[in-house]
């Protein structure tokens, strides 16, 4: 993909179930989009180009947003995977399950009943899952929504034949670099910073709000130590679990993330193993 004289790489941008916020973020980044169009052929863009007919050829890279919430999503994802040399999950729904997976611990039937008072509205609905539950993911850009700069840098690195920069430090580190006062220490608030992967420059804390963990967990999150820390600050377990559950439930509140990583020692694209351990 790194030869500039050869044909431009073909890129498809797809959306499964989600709010389309990541595609929107990309659409809003106008100057960058123009630069991107100079380097690649965007042949599918679910949100921006109405699909007259299905793209049939091979893609060099598929960017996929949204989580898998239905049989249809799953089939579409599998099709995209077959058509693409590389696949990048964009946004926390695609990477971690995101907000739709917040209720992963409640059976879908029961959810249908609670929300629609009818168990049969969406007969093919499934609990939200990240892409990596079904296909191999080569690259991941987390965030709700994504940091557009991070996505473009990753694309640029891939186009240049390199690997995207992998962030592996928690939001706390950026929070300290930005010289913020810790909200756990100063206000006894639940903050997901210690276990959430950085890259947002601790945006929420800089606005006086604790981190909601929208970027999902760091590699090797220190769940026990973090929980201990909250308890020492007198915070209730339910509050802590609620906060952590919001964006990355399937990954690690309902299951044991460590076991997932054991199945993916490379941790490329945060693949997760198919085995569904029950965990902390």
């Amino acid at each position, binding site marked *: 993909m790194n030869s*500039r004289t050869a044909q431009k790489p073909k890129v498809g941008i797809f959306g499964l179930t989600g709010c389309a916020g990541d595609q929107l973020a990309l659409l809003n980044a106008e100057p*960058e989009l123009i*630069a*991107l169009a*100079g*380097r690649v052929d965007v042949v599918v863009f679910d949100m921006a180009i109405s699909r007259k007919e299905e793209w049939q050829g091979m893609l060099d890279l598929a960017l996929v947003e949204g989580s898998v919430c239905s049989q249809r999503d799953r089939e579409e994802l599998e099709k995209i995977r077959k058509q693409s040399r590389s696949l990048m999950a964009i946004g926390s729904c695609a990477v971690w399950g995101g907000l739709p997976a917040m209720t992963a611990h409640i059976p879908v039937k029961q959810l249908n009943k609670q929300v629609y008072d009818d168990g049969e509205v969406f007969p093919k609905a499934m609990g939200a899952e990240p892409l990596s539950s079904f296909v191999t993911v080569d690259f991941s850009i987390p965030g709700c929504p994504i940091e557009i700069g991070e996505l*473009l*840098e990753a*694309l*640029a*690195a891939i*186009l*240049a034949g*390199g690997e995207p*920069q*992998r962030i*592996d*430090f*928690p939001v*706390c*580190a950026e*929070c*300290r*670099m*930005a*010289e*913020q*006062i*810790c909200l*756990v*220490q*100063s206000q006894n608030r639940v903050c997901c*910073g*210690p*276990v959430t992967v950085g890259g947002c420059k601790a945006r929420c804390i800089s606005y006086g709000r604790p981190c909601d963990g929208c970027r999902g967990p*760091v*590699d*090797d*999150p*220190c769940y*026990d*130590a*973090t929980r*201990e*820390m909250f308890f*020492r600050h007198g915070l209730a377990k339910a509050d802590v679990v609620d906060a952590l559950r919001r964006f990355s439930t399937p990954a690690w509140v309902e299951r044991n993330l460590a076991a997932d990583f054991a199945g993916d*020692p*490379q*941790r490329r694209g945060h693949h997760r193993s198919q085995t569904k351990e029950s965990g902390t």
Partner: protein
Amino acid sequence: METFTLYREHLGQFLDVCQEQFRVQIPVSAGDGRYRFSPLAGHGVEALALEYHRTLLPPKKYFLLPEETICTFDQKGYHPVEVAEEPFLLFGLHPCDLHGLRIIDQFFSTPYADSAYQSRRKNALIVGLGCLPDDKCFCATMNTQQIMGGYDLFFWDLGERFYIQVGSEAGHGLIHKAREMFHDVVDEDRQDYLETLYQRRHLLTPKVDVADLSQIMEANPDCAVWDELGAACFACGACTMVCPTCTCYDIFDRVELDGSGRRCRQWDSCLFRDFDRIAGEVHFRSDRSDRVKNRFFHKEVVHVKQHQRSACVGCGRCQEACPAGIDVVSVLSRVHASCA
């Protein structure tokens, strides 16, 4: 050595004079009993927090920026980035921070001079400020309560006036830009100054026994203390970000879509899992306890061997910053007690 006094009410005027030539940085309150070094220009002299003990980030933030571009690149090659730093003046560094600055000065000058660091450093004037310890200071344990130079001017707060020591030509020059504000030292000033020193040294007693600390740590590297700490620490790296003597950084490229880009460096920490990742996804210290241990070993063993002194200056920042409440004084005393 020259000494002068300055009446408290003239401090603002003096800083204004400094401001004509330097971007003056002062400690100001950040709320919640915390402080930051911030530009005087944005705050005014009323914001100067002479009572501060430690700032959230140490003075190193001015010299080793949290993130900076070290060069740019494009199809034509690499292009160095010139650091065009206007002269600035850091007002109010306590003795521990002067020691900390000296430690990182050494790191960034030998054996190779770091040009970005050096160009910022040589543009900076340093004004020290005497202090009395709080419960987190342990400079007396690390022997960094001693003032051993490294300042252009040093201020001692004697109440209605400051007792000022000149430490360099540049400091001398600063005084002489506003010479009419300063008074020659008389006997009474000298007595008050000595009295202040006397009070200070009686408050400064070592908090832990650190005798043979390096030897004990080295002799017993598998001491159980490290596993206990590894279980409590969540590897957030806050302790290293805020440390005046932690100098680790990562270098990486931020590439643009046209293939040009910036080579950046950003603060890094030996507590981060990625810190020691090498080709083939191999980690030297994949256990958190090994990473915590590394931090203390660097400060107390490796640095001692290389530079004949601990790299901890007892500022208490890591203790204040650690959300897990891991405090270095109790770590050192536990190591001393259980690993020996």
